[in-house]
């Protein structure tokens, strides 16, 4: 097959050697270990403190941060987004940073107002 330089061919640079493969497999196993440990920590925290009112907001934000960490590893390592061009990474991620953040903020704020009472600003984030 002739490789064309005007249309990007998958086969151009996706093959790698045995040594590189070994390194990559090691990395994947590291990520597996990390994701498992994070999940175990989350479940353990939930079991210990989910009924403790004073821990509620700490738990909430810890869970959200840990979830974003897990999501980051899955997209960047497993989905190889980290190996793509910077411009493409932005194409994929920018919609979430802009639209989803906004959507979540608006929805949570509005939800408090439809609940039948008007909270003070300090209640928005559960502090």
């Amino acid at each position, binding site marked *: 097959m002739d490789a064309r330089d005007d249309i990007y061919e998958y*086969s151009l640079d996706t093959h790698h050697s045995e040594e590189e493969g070994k390194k990559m497999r090691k990395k994947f196993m590291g990520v597996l270990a990390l994701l498992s440990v994070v999940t175990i920590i989350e*479940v353990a925290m939930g079991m210990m403190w989910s009924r403790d009112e004073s821990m509620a907001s700490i738990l909430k934000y810890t869970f959200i941060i840990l979830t974003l960490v897990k999501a980051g590893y*899955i997209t960047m390592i497993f989905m190889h987004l980290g190996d*793509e061009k910077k411009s493409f990474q932005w194409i994929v991620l920018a*919609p979430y940073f802009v639209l989803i953040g906004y959507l979540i903020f608006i929805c949570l704020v509005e939800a408090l107002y439809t609940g039948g009472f008007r909270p003070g600003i300090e209640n928005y984030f559960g502090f």
Partner: protein
Amino acid sequence: MSGHVSQTAAPSHSDHSASPWGGGTSPFKISYGKMMMWFFLISDAFTFSGLLTAYGFMRHKYEDIWPTAGDVFTHFPFYDGHIELAYVAFMTFVLIASSVTMVLAVEAGHRMKKKSVQFWMVLTIIGGAVFVGSQAWEWYHFIHGTEHGAYLLEDGVTVMKHKIDPQTHVIEEGTFLVPVNRDGELTEGSGFREVSGHEATVLKSTATHIHGANLSHNEYGIPLFADFFFFITGFHGFHVFSGVCINFIIFLMVVEGKFEKTGHYEMVEKSGLYWHFVDLVWVFVFTFFYLL
């Protein structure tokens, strides 16, 4: 378009690298198929974001009476007791592990190792099937409910629950919880009120005894919880099911030796992207539905 390039000289490779956006080149250095898979996943992620945001909205609105997932999903196969979220944690692990086997299949494809790709894809398909089966099992228990059940009051929406000790998980006989608003009136609102004795008997006389959950009632509390559970985990489970089917088709193509002929395993990488996405969505569902 490109004013800097001489009209007479044929465009050479170096002209492209000077400006990837000048045309005649692929600026993202990514194949068409993979890029389109990414774009599909972006749109699919919006759908899930919409569902989860709607869930967040309703949950925030009914924060005080929303059931705790830890009280609902307490079953574990071959174990009779009460163990919170352990099975969901197991499901999460299965899906993460199958994501790893998928990425190993993709990696083996980059080395053109057919046998290895086959092996990892089989493990991925098994992992996916175990996950879908686990979800069916969990749905069964949620729909089936508990032995003691709850009482659906006259209005057809409000549920009077048994009062259960959070530590020992033992029911307090004759004591119930009903959702009330700020003035103590019996509606979906901002908290629970204990009901017992004569009042409980009166409420019970017009109520229906229910077990488990479906789209219209839910023994664990507000029906919205069940609606969102069925919709979100169902939509995700359908994605997993399609993923298993797609992976199986690609696996057959691998066995046939189709990709040996093409010279690359791009197809495995594309279905891999979809599979990792399914895992990614589950990470969010797990947090927002089960943990929080």
